[in-house]
């Protein structure tokens, strides 16, 4: 609390921010959320660090290794596991984003709160634009560049969670603010969100990859308790390049060619953690998940720096 008081003297805008945060906290029922929010405010207020704007560009790659353009287009096709596929939807959440320094310590990226795509420490990345092959449940806007602030300096990589922290993975009674109100990402039967959604067609065969926390329950020995999920399926991504990672010139690439290695796209089907087929388990493995426990070993897990 003393820390706040010292900072409050620095300016009215920060005082307002803390006040708004506390007012919000006092009326909310979920205490863990409040702790997260206060921590975020405290992080903003940490003295002594020069935080510079940083934009991190995300991109999708397919089998085609010669092009540097984004492989996803609602007006075109992609090649995965040597098959030609037509994408329908690609969206995923990332959160708890950090930049990795040469000594392997990390610094937090504080996300700009844009009221559309970024909320607290989570961002929704969205490739589909609701046109062409993506018109079924699509939206017009796309979001491939995460914007925020981080200490200026030299970095060798990026670390983030593929998915939402549990404090944000809850569909509340009321509709939450954007982007948490993106209904196409609701996983209402689990009470939370799809963390990753990728849907495509191979001829007539459709594949839907939906990954999110499972084993979720609010039931505890005769009574109702807060929701917890036994299998998080929250990807722990850390991708580094010893030569350095400069967000201004390099991109973070989700290599779908790596993710779908060993998967027969011509068969199609639902690929979800709940009761995943053997083929689906291969994909989950490529993304770094332990299918049985829903855990994730920290690593590249399908991502690259290019």
């Amino acid at each position, binding site marked *: *609390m003393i820390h706040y*008081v010292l900072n*409050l003297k620095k300016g009215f805008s920060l*005082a307002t921010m803390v*006040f708004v945060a*506390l*007012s919000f906290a*006092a*009326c909310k029922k979920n205490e863990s959320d409040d702790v997260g929010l206060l921590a975020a405010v405290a992080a903003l207020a940490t003295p002594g660090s020069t935080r510079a704007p940083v934009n991190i560009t995300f991109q999708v790659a397919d089998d085609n290794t010669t092009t540097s353009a984004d492989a996803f287009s609602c007006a075109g096709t992609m090649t995965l596991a040597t098959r030609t596929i037509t994408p329908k939807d690609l969206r995923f959440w990332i959160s708890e984003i950090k930049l990795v320094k040469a000594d392997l310590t990390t610094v937090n990226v504080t996300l700009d709160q844009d009221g559309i795509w970024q909320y607290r420490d989570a961002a929704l990345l969205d490739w589909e634009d609701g046109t062409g092959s993506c018109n*079924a*449940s699509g939206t017009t806007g796309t979001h491939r560049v995460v914007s925020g602030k981080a200490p200026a300096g030299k970095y060798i990589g990026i670390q983030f969670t593929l998915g939402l922290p549990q404090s944000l993975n809850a*569909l*509340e*009674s*009321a*509709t939450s603010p954007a982007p948490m109100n993106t*209904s196409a990402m*609701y*996983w*209402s*039967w*689990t*009470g939370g969100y*799809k963390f990753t959604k990728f849907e495509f067609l191979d001829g007539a065969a459709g594949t*839907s990859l*939906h990954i999110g926390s*499972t*084993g*979720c*329950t*609010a*039931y505890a020995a*005769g*009574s*109702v308790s807060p*929701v917890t999920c*036994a*299998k998080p399926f929250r990807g722990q991504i850390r991708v580094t390049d010893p030569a350095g990672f400069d967000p201004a010139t390099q991109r973070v690439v989700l290599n779908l060619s790596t993710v779908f290695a060993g998967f027969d796209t011509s068969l199609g089907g*639902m690929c*979800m953690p*709940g*009761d995943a087929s053997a083929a689906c388990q291969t994909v989950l493995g490529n993304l770094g998940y332990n299918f049985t426990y829903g855990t994730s070993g920290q690593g590249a897990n399908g991502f690259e720096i290019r």
Partner: protein
Amino acid sequence: MITILPLLLTVSCSKKNIIGTEFRWDLPDGIPAPYVPEENPMTVEKVALGRRLFYDKRLSQDQTMSCASCHVQKFAFSDRKKTPRGIPSGTGDLHPRNAQHLSNAAYYSMLTWANPVLSNFEVQMRVPLFFTANAIRELGLEGDDYLRRLRNDKTYLEMFAAAFGAGKPETIINEANMRFAIASFERSLLSFNSPYDRHRRGEKNAMSESALRGMELFNGDQAKCSRCHSGFNFTESVVHYEGKAVLFYRNNGLYSGAYYASKNGNERGLFEFTQKPEDVGRFRVPSLRNVALTFPYMHDGSISCSPNHSNDDDACATEALGKVIDHYRKGGAAGSEKDENITGFELTEQEKNDLIEFLKSLTDREFITNPSFSDPFGGEI
């Protein structure tokens, strides 16, 4: 600053601006008011709007079904089907569960047969309205077309404004307000005027001698029905303002473990969510309110009457309830991981008939004919 903040906060949180007219519960003595989420206080206007939305087929993707398609007032808001199908333009698959009645559903501590995260109508409703990820599509809404349909209806413009405050159609006719109104209507569906309730209130001859004998059996140590179908709502899993939310999932011995192992993941009860072996075949105990109207019984609608009784409601209820009693009398199916209360018991035919008469005394005719719960379109839409 530190001393001022808490004062400001107290003021900002205690001040409630309720739009519209506060809804007054019409509850008999001894019945607690249902729990209402703080963010969605009950008002007369929301209940009226919710009733219209509940019956409106424009709230399905192909405009062929409404909530009321599977929740029919004359069947205490169940649907008489083993298991229903969703919209015709969906997958056309049968739902894995029997549609439940909604009498006093406001008191459930958790909604649906086995899902352990859907703790109120506001949250649960997203599943029938929007869930399309699985094979089962109920109303199958996608995109914003349904909101445009509502915004083009002058009656809705007036009703949403009355319920949520004046504003532009795009602002007040939104997804959350739609859910809040339907939830308010569902909370208003209270059933406390059955012969059993009238007997409890001291009305002489409200229940027959046979039904009274059946009530003794229901509550007694022989049949032990009330161990799980307990309390004023005939289920142990309730929440209200006078106590903590209680929630149990139990295996009623309907099927063997081998049977469940052969079924799809979404037909194995609580196990679907927790993946714990002991949760296979566990479901939340349903309320027995209006039970003589809500056959077929069980989570999969597997217990009903034979076809020759299908045109006689009373005869069908008698036969189907008799089958349920027989199931518990013999102590469940062989090889089932049944709950400790399912031990089997002796019962004469007279006692069985008395139990059935008691269960029929839970039928609330006023509830199923109450005009304020009925279709406001009069079948016109």
